[in-house]
């Protein structure tokens, strides 16, 4: 593990499409970059036993989650030749259609960005202690489990 400062990955509420656009814009001064790949997780209006999801309320064991995000970042930079990587995850309520996870990787050449993007997202799903409470339109809820 490196001694780099552990960043806070969490954002209160949804991640706006403008935030994503602005993140891309910030990389346009980095002229060694040739390829960006982005993942955005959007809250689905799933129907479960006749009830429809209206939002997900995210909570997390934040200290551990930020440590895990940091470890994922280090492992990804170790495995793939990337120029930049950014991860943002929502906390609190994110309505259907809104974005709750934003992963952004950039590299000089394209080949690595697809694999790196998938790696980061799968690592987050598997190893980061974030918990989603699916709120139904009738205000009942259930705890989401990743598949």
């Amino acid at each position: 593990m490196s001694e780099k400062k552990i960043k806070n990955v969490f954002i209160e509420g949804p991640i706006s499409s403008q935030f994503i656009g602005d993140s891309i814009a910030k990389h346009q001064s980095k002229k060694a970059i040739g390829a960006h790949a982005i993942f955005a997780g959007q809250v689905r209006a799933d129907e479960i036993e006749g009830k429809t999801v209206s939002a997900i309320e995210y909570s997390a064991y934040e200290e551990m989650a930020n440590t895990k995000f940091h470890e994922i970042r280090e492992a990804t930079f170790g495995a793939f030749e990337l120029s930049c990587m950014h991860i943002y995850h929502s906390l609190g309520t994110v309505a259907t259609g809104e974005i709750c996870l934003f992963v952004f990787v950039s590299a000089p050449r394209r080949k690595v960005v697809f694999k790196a993007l998938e790696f980061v997202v799968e690592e987050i799903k598997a190893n980061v202690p974030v918990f989603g409470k699916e709120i139904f339109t009738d205000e009942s809820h259930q705890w989401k489990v990743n598949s």
Partner: protein
Amino acid sequence: MNLNIKYFGVLAEITKCSEETLSFSEGTVGELLAVLQAKYPALGTKDFQVAHKQEIVTKDTKITNPEIALLPPFSGG
């Protein structure tokens, strides 16, 4: 040692709190879980992992740090 036990997701619904302080003599994670399951029998019906020093640990891990977290299945992203 006074432990600070944190509960997340459905586990916090069972314990009706997000964290609590518990006096615990030296021992393993398994021994702590026995205490907690006596206090909250419904915990036994749930799938969860235990984090100690921000790492997932097994039942025979000896507790050396006061912060322990009970984590239901992850569902980020």
